[in-house]
């Protein structure tokens, strides 16, 4: 059970600052791997001809999949696969993390062949009491995905719970 969590001025300073961009690739293989991981049976996420017959340029991203961050040993997070540190850090020292939820807004189709430039910013920090874990620090992040043509294709707001 965590001790009392305090949001310090240093933590507050990280709010609202965009990270450096990181590239996420959407490839036919990565779309299939994601679809297979979720358990899709729909051919459109596996077979390019089926995808084109359904009106897509190539295999479409299944909902919630926003490409695979390019992995560089030492620069990428070995557990979560995203970049290790491209924005200001919220240094809280809490050992455990749970996912709180997410909301994704789509502005255009994302298909295999696309390369997304992804920026993340901490949108909000707050402390909440939880029945099971005591106090939790809730970090809300806003991720913006821009494709190779400069079009913002998706925005995702997500919450991580630290305790």
């Amino acid at each position: 059970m965590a001790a009392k969590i305090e949001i310090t001025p240093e933590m507050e300073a990280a709010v609202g600052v965009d990270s450096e961009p990181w590239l996420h690739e959407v490839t036919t293989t990565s779309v299939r791997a994601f679809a297979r991981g979720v358990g899709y049976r729909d051919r459109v996420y596996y077979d390019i001809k089926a995808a084109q017959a359904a009106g897509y340029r190539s295999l479409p991203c299944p909902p919630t999949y926003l490409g695979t961050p390019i992995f560089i040993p030492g620069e990428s997070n070995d557990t979560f696969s995203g970049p290790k540190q491209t924005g200001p850090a919220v240094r809280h020292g809490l050992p455990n993390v749970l996912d709180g939820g997410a909301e994704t807004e789509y502005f255009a189709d994302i298909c295999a062949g696309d390369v997304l430039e992804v920026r993340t910013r901490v949108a909000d920090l707050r402390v909440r009491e939880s029945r099971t874990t005591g106090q939790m620090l809730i970090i809300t992040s806003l991720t913006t995905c821009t494709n190779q043509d400069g079009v913002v294709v998706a925005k995702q707001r997500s919450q991580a719970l630290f305790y």
Partner: protein
Amino acid sequence: MPLAWDDFEEGDELPVLKKAPGVTQLVKYAAGGGDFNPLHHDFAFPQAKAIGSIIIHGRFKYAALGELVSNWLDHGGRIVKLACQYRGMDLPDRELTLGGRVTRKYEQDGRRCAELELWVKTAEDKNTTPGSASVELRG
């Protein structure tokens, strides 16, 4: 068949999607989604030991709600917004029933849209992952 505007009404429920992901499925999801948190595959991981089990990725449930909506649309429309909250942990090899309901069907500026309420229910009928979606029909 791709979903058409006349195929549904407010109050309609989406065809349910049942899943009972085991460790192997979660490993496939980890590979596809890039989340290798040991909490989702390693029973010896301290947080898993404290909880008493590994748990299903919240993001797996989120993606599965996306699959539920995608199956319903069958590419007759696109998802404009998809959201969910993780209110309870789900354990592997337990059956989950994913469902949804059309809460609103409307036309706006020539766009044909619908709002959906979504859920992931355990065998005990507990909704661990309430969600929502906004969709726009193509035709």
